[in-house]
C-alpha cells in the first residue's frame, strides 16, 4: 500500500541553524501539507501546497519557514533559523483531490538545543 515517507526520523540541531525536513508524498496525490505537534499538544496546521505554490498557511508559518517541491517526488519544509520553540514532531501529509482524505507520514522529531 502506498505511504507517505519522511526523513530523517529524528533531527537534532543547534538554535539558529537551518534545517530541511523531507517528505515523499504518495505518488498520485496532488495536495501536500505540513503539520506540527509540540509534545503533549494537539496537531497544528502549518501550510498546504498545490500546483507548486502555497495554498494556505497558518500564523505559525512565518518568514522563517518555507516549502518547496524541488522535483517530482520530494516535498520539503525548511526552517531558516531554528528556535527552541520549534522543537516538535513535524508531519507531512498528502491527499488525492478525488478522495479528500489526508494521509500522514511517520513524522520527523525535531529537537532544537
Amino acid at each position, binding site marked *: 500500500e502506498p505511504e507517505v515517507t519522511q526523513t530523517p526520523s529524528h533531527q537534532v540541531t543547534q538554535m539558529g541553524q537551518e534545517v530541511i525536513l523531507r517528505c515523499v508524498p504518495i505518488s498520485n496525490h496532488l495536495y501536500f501539507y505540513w503539520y506540527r505537534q509540540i509534545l503533549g499538544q494537539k496537531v497544528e496546521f502549518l501550510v498546504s501546497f*498545490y500546483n507548486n505554490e502555497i495554498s494556505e498557511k*497558518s500564523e505559525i508559518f512565518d518568514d522563517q519557514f518555507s516549502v518547496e517541491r524541488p522535483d517530482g517526488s520530494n516535498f520539503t519544509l525548511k526552517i531558516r533559523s531554528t528556535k527552541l520553540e520549534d522543537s516538535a*514532531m513535524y508531519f507531512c501529509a498528502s491527499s488525492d483531490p478525488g478522495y479528500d482524505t489526508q494521509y500522514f507520514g511517520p*513524522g520527523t522529531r525535531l529537537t532544537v538545543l
Partner: protein
Amino acid sequence: AQTVTQSQPEMSVQEAETVTLSCTYDTSESDYYLFWYKQPPSRQMILVIRQEAYKQQNATENRFSVNFQKAAKSFSLKISDSQLGDAAMYFCAYRSQYSGNTPLVFGKGTRLSVIA
C-alpha cells in the same frame, strides 16, 4: 473559525469491552468531513475512520464505528471488542469541504488505555 473539542483527556477500557470517545465541533458550514486519527506511541498518525457530513449513515470500519449527530455537531467514536493494540492517542479532526485542500483542524486528543 472551526473548533474541535474532545472533552475526555483520558479513557480506559477493559480488553474485549466497548468504549466511546466523544468529539464535538463548531462550524457554520454545512459541507465538511470528520475524521478520527489514531496516534500510537510511535507517534505516527493513522486514519481510523472518516465521515462525510452529507451522509446520514454512520461510517463503520470493522470494530470502529461513529455516531454522527449533525444537528448536535457531535461525532463520537465507538471501539468494540477493544484490543491491546487499540491503546493510543485518538484525535478527532474536521475538514471543510469548500476546496480540495483545506487543512485539518484537530482536537486535543483522548488517550485511551486498554487494560488486559
